[in-house]
């Protein structure tokens, strides 16, 4: 079945490290945006979606609109419906309404529980607010709560990170996404001198966190994703499995009916058009859903790349294995059927994947 991604590109303020597409929140604009999304959804009345994901931006700002949008989505009975939320706008009222509207998974932008680090990141919440947000969500009936965690941020140390992870382990969260801060061009962070940990420390932070989360019962299933038994994010898995998903909204991406396409980063254009304009992605020499995409995406999963499937999609398994032989031992595992990266390998996954696919 197909997944549905609805982009909610509104924020109260832009975080200084973020280069995702979003605009300043305004009530009138939100109302118009909602109508445009519903207009677009009407073209997919016949589609049954088994995962729905409201990503941002800060989707929870538009919780009222989202309740209405959900009335226009034909979701499967057991659909996973996720909404991203910022801890400082998580309130009992909105969450209760959303829960009733069918949302059953909340992804909280916790990032850290250390106030100094949060401040350095330019976030508006503190650790206490994040803890409270998780508890509120739980009390509103959400049993599937994910927390975003950032590594390698300014002022972060191995010790402070350890503490944040320990605290997270005590909260009612069942899923953790742990990303490394990447300094993107054209963001305020790119213009500043930042007190970032050094490379060796960052590597240790990542490996320590993998281990610590494992001990807390979160199993790593993807480079940056960890889940308790039964709480793997079904929507995200579609990305790594070359599954199909439809994206609605400016800057949203889709892989739908065999095509990958996206919508331009243009809020006005989106609101004004009857139907969003899909721009076909440049396949860059690799077929949509072909062996290269498969390898690139599956190698992000702990499960790894299945050689049979790789072959089925047109890949040359022998060549791949030949290239794999040149990769240092501790970076990958091969069990006769699948190649998978170890946490150490995940750290250099871009390099490894490029190496493995060089033979083309």
């Amino acid at each position, binding site marked *: 079945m197909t997944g549905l991604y609805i982009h909610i590109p509104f924020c109260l303020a832009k975080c200084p490290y973020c280069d995702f597409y979003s605009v300043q929140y305004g009530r009138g604009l939100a109302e118009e945006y909602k109508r445009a999304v519903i207009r677009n959804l009407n073209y997919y009345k016949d589609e049954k979606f088994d995962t729905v994901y409201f990503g941002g931006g800060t989707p929870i700002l538009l919780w009222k609109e989202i309740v209405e949008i959900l009335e226009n989505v034909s979701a499967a009975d057991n659909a996973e419906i996720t909404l991203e939320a910022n801890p400082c706008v998580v309130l009992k009222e909105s969450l209760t309404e959303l829960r009733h509207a069918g949302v059953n998974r909340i992804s909280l932008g916790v990032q850290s529980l250390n106030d100094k680090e949060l401040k350095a990141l330019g976030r508006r919440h503190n650790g206490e607010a994040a803890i409270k947000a998780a508890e509120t969500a739980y009390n509103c009936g959400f049993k599937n709560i994910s927390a975003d965690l950032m590594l390698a941020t300014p002022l972060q140390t191995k010790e402070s990170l350890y503490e944040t992870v320990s605290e997270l382990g005590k909260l009612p969260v069942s899923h953790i996404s742990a990303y490394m801060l990447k300094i993107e061009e054209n963001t305020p962070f790119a213009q500043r001198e930042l007190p970032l940990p050094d490379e060796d420390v960052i590597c240790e932070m990542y490996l320590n966190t993998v281990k610590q989360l494992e001990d807390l019962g979160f199993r790593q299933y993807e480079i940056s994703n960890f889940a308790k038994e039964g709480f793997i994010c079904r929507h995200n898995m579609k990305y790594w499995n070359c599954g199909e998903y439809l994206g609605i909204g400016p800057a*949203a991406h889709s892989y739908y009916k065999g095509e990958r396409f996206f919508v331009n980063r243009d809020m006005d254009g989106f609101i004004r058009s009857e139907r969003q304009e899909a721009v076909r992605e440049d396949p860059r020499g690799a077929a949509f859903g072909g062996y290269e995409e498969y390898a690139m995406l599956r190698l992000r999963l702990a499960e790894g790349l299945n050689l049979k499937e790789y072959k089925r999609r047109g890949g040359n398994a022998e060549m791949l294995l030949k290239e794999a032989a040149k990769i240092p031992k501790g970076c990958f595992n091969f069990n006769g059927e699948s190649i998978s990266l170890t946490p150490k390998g995940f750290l250099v996954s871009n390099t490894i994947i490029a*190496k493995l696919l060089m033979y083309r």
Partner: protein
Amino acid sequence: MALEYPQNIRNFCIIAHIDHGKSTLADRILELTKTVAQRDMEEQLLDNMELERERGITIKARAVRLNYTAVDGNEYVFNLIDTPGHVDFNYEVSRSLNACEGAILIVDASQGIEAQTLANTYLAVEQDLEIVPVINKIDLPSARPDEAKEEIETVIGIPADDAPCISAKMGINIEAVMEQVVKCVPCPKGDKDAKLKALIFDSYYDAYKGVIVHIRVKEGTVRTGDKIRMMATGAEFQVTELGYMGATELISADELRAGEVGYIAASIKSIGDTKVGDTVTLADDPAAEALAGYRNVNPMVFSGIYPADGSKYQDLRDALDKLQLNDASLSFDPETSIALGFGFRCGFLGLLHMDIIQERLEREYNLDIITTAPSVVYRITKTNGEVVMIDNPTNYPDVSEIEQAEEPIVCAHIFSPSDFVGSIMELCQDRRGVFKDMKYLDDKRVDIHYELPLNEIVYDFFDALKSRSRGYASYDYEIIGFAPSKLVKLDIMLNGDVVDALSFIVHTDKAYPRARRICEKLKENIPRQLFEVPVQAAIGGKIIARETIKAMRKDVLAKCYGGDITRKKKLLEKQKEGKKRMRRLGTVSVPQEAFMAVLKLDE
């Protein structure tokens, strides 16, 4: 009065140090004689290669014919032959000089005589040329024309009292130069009815006419339709066209007589058939003997040139073929390197020549190339008595097979203000030089004479000399032979594997510091790999230097935003692209910059 043959012909060249204003004076002369219309006047017209204009040097000789009406009312034909001003092209210079009866010697009024100028002036004096000294750049505040004149008189030993003081740049007193040429340079001798002897002093390839040969007719007459023979190569051709060199175009004529300078086109396909210094004669009525002084110039500096992208091998070959059409002194042979794949071993007259060829390949042919460290030719006598010449370190025999190793030695003259003698001698000593003697040119300048191994000056000697003399010193060298030396081959290993393209031959005493420096440079220039990479330098299996490139521990783990796979794909493509530009040596990926960096060890 009408033109009288041959009394009113003047064949002359200009001798000057780089930047002393040779090309500028040539331009002013062209203007003055209205050979070039003002609107066609491009700065330094004779240097018609883009590179020449940029570097302010003349790479190849050019010639041009001018008409000049002298103060006495007589008309003259001037053949101005521009000569390259660099030591690498010494032989070409000597042939150009041989086509003339006189030489204008330009001396910079603020700098005095430089080593290269003196070397070329001696060459001119040897060939019995009349020297016309000219003091240039008198418009500069630092100009000391009287001292320059005095220097000419004491150093070269020719009177310079009535040498015109000019400014080529400002166009001051140019006519006086022309009158000096009329007065001092003798008209050509030679019998137009004798058997043909014409000297080739330059040639270039023209896509329509084939090779165009620049000649100076010494004896006899050559006409369109004549069957000619090149006396050294034996090649024969039919003259399809001949004439004079205008400044911007060729002007055809019916015949060229003894004393005249001009060109011949004869559907010649290969420039190798028209060697500079060779004698042209008539095939049906040949001269008994060729003009004296011809020799085959041998390349002295060698380096491997490889396409950065292996698939451009054929393009590189085509480009070298085309360059060779205009430059017979460039040699190249295919060679294979384990590290760099297919490429060419190229031979050059010297370092500047090598530089120019590399730059032209990159600029005019748009090729990305990798060049290996320059090597000189070594003469190795093996234990079995065999003597081999080695121009590629890869072919250097095993130590056990070597009875004696010899390296080329040059005799170098360095001209410098006396203040810098100490540090220049230190430099020469450091480069294994043997001091010969030192002469004072005047009370401020000296001529320091050293014998130096060529391999010590092929890298960066000139730069070092300049920096030790605040730019004032100049030098000139000539190869005088081979001398026994303690040489070793230094191998560079990456992850335990020898990289053939990085091997080089070095004197034992220099091996250690050099090895260390190269290892450091490689460490700086090779990106981290997935595993630790040792960089080692070894002599015959014994490691003498080592650095370690630490393993890469992480690349970027970014959030995959809303299923934006394309972002990841772009990253992957970028990574693959980057890897493609690298050379894979065993398990190590090496960017081409690393090969370049080891050429510039002293930065």
